[in-house]
């Protein structure tokens, strides 16, 4: 016991005594995350503001009589140029292509006469718009004109023709949409969160073990400081357990830093927009939180164990790095799988698969659908595997081939 505490203590002291390491492990990710999300938020917000403020330059050919007044009555902000049927459109189309003009609307000649003179079977006149979907201003102008202005204009012409528009409407669906939604609000927003969170947790928890484990094991082997411990009268298993405990503690800490900075930063991305999912995280029950915590702890133990096992066999830190990276990819894939599998039925034994089972369990904790059997299976599965890994690590520590290359 004494040995475990001493070994773990040195590991912690090593990290906390190193300002650069503290910075790169705990401070930089938090700051980076915050800055990144703030910048994204700013850019997104700025873009929308800009589009809203922009006054589109619109060209209208053969505008029917009264169209100009109609546009003004709807308070559509635009710089409109009216063209005659004889004007050439090529320059304007070229300008739209280059982003210098935003929209061109072409009415057929004698539009109003055709509309008013309509009788059954005649051809229906077409209003044609030209725009550039690659340009934000142009798409926005087109969507304003097509969806709002032209539809309204169509309605008003139709009203002129039939008199009472209501006679054309047989029934309506959902006048007030918000009153027709019946849902458990926690579960609905939990659903959003349950898609992202398992993936994020599964991925972020790995970063700590990955950056710390290799240095704590392979690094010490390379520097010759591991051997000094092997000459001391402590059991190899105590050294292993001490290292794993210290690495797990540090990994949890770094995961907390990540989690907190995500929670603080993400709302900055949406810059004032409402983020429902995050609000529900506060409405977890005690049981859910305990379950989540236990799953995360077991996951950290597994990560630390697998990185340590790789690190102990690797001869150099570089070699260890090349072996750890594919493992990280597998972990990410396991996380992504749950993201897309949704809440579909999953057979109980599958929960015992490390990482995959944990991600699925986290998903169900959030939606409140995790059964005791699923929870137990996922914890038991990953802990058993991790314990076996720990035993293998101890065996490797006892091997002179592994420790001394002999």
């Amino acid at each position: 016991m004494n040995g475990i505490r001493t070994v773990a203590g040195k590991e912690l002291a090593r990290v906390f005594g190193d300002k650069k390491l503290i910075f790169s492990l705990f401070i930089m990710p938090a700051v980076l995350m915050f800055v990144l999300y703030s910048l994204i938020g700013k850019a997104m917000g700025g873009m929308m503001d800009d589009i809203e403020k922009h006054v589109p330059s619109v060209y209208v050919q053969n505008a029917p009589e009264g169209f100009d007044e109609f546009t003004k009555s709807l308070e559509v902000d635009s710089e409109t140029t009216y063209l005659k049927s004889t004007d050439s459109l090529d320059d304007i189309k070229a300008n739209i292509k280059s982003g210098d003009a935003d929209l061109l609307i072409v009415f057929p000649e004698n539009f109003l006469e055709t509309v008013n003179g309509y009788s059954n079977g005649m051809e229906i006149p077409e209003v044609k718009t030209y725009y550039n979907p690659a340009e934000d201003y142009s798409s926005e102008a087109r969507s304003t004109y097509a969806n709002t202005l032209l539809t309204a204009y169509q309605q008003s012409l139709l009203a002129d023709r039939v008199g009472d528009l209501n006679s054309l409407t047989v029934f309506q669906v959902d006048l007030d949409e918000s009153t027709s939604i019946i849902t458990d609000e926690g579960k609905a927003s939990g659903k959003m969160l349950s898609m992202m969170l398992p993936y994020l947790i599964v991925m972020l928890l790995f970063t700590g073990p990955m950056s710390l484990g290799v240095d704590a094991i392979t690094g010490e082997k390379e520097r010759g400081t591991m051997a000094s411990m092997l000459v001391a009268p402590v059991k190899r298993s105590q050294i292993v357990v001490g290292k794993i405990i210290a690495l797990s503690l540090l990994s949890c800490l770094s995961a907390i830093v990540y989690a907190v900075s995500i929670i603080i930063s993400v709302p900055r991305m949406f810059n004032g927009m409402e983020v429902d999912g995050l609000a529900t995280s506060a409405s977890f029950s005690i049981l859910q939180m305990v379950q989540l915590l236990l799953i995360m702890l077991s996951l950290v133990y597994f990560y630390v164990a697998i990185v340590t096992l790789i690190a102990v066999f690797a001869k150099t830190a570089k070699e260890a790095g090349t072996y750890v990276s594919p493992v990280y990819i597998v972990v990410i894939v396991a996380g992504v799988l749950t993201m897309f599998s949704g809440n579909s039925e999953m057979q109980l034994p599958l929960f015992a698969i490390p990482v995959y089972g944990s991600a699925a369990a986290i998903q169900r904790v959030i939606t409140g659908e995790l059964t005791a059997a699923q929870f137990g299976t996922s914890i038991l599965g990953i802990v058993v595997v991790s314990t076996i890994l720990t035993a293998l690590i101890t065996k490797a520590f006892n091997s002179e081939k592994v420790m001394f290359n002999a």
Partner: protein
Amino acid sequence: MIQVNNLTKVYKLSKKQMAEQKTKKNMKKAVDNVDIKAVPGEIYGLLGPNGAGKTTTLRCIATLLKPTEGDISVCGLDTVTQSEGVRNKIAFLTNEIKLDPQFSPTYMFRFFGRLHGLTEAQINERMKVLFEQFGITDFKDKKIDELSTGMKQKAAIAVSLVHDPEVVIFDEPTNGLDIVTARTVTDYLKELRAQGKVVIVSTHIMTEAEKLCDRIGIIINGQKVMEGTLSQILTETQGEDLEDAFFRLYEKYNTEEVR
């Protein structure tokens, strides 16, 4: 007491090592049937050229490697079956074993004191004595990284002795040290001898072996080719001094067939 009986140590070579050593054999017999007996109150010296098998022998005594053949006992404890007990009784120093560069000598001293199960009071007392002895007090709180080779070596020696061990196994302890620092170390080894400890050192420095060691074992190509006091060795080889004696032995035993 250290008793090494018929020690043979064979390294299995990886493909890369085979290429490096330009050999087709995938085995390297680093130590070949060696007997050593070192008793309390004496300094035993292992003398041999590079690659002779000195470090390998000492690592086996220090429980880090298991003998391929033969057995070793330290203070009556077997190095394989009672390795933890053996580790409690020994100090082991070799240039491949290092102290953590980012910690101070003080921290490392406490760390190993705790691993040896000493109380804080015991650690403080030992620290006072040993740091004074080796002149570490001036730089005891500096990072090991920032120390000179000599300072590092002094710190490493002090740390290895934290638990006042009965057996001291030092692999080339004066390697890379200036004569002043080297003298500090050899003087301390003599003091340990006076305290009745078992001391075994390896070296390839002839004068050091002559002056320091009570008995010398000469090891060439993994085999112990001669053992005895300085005068015994000189008589037997008819050499003028140890260097002369060594070369006579070296010419005789370093043949292709042994290699």
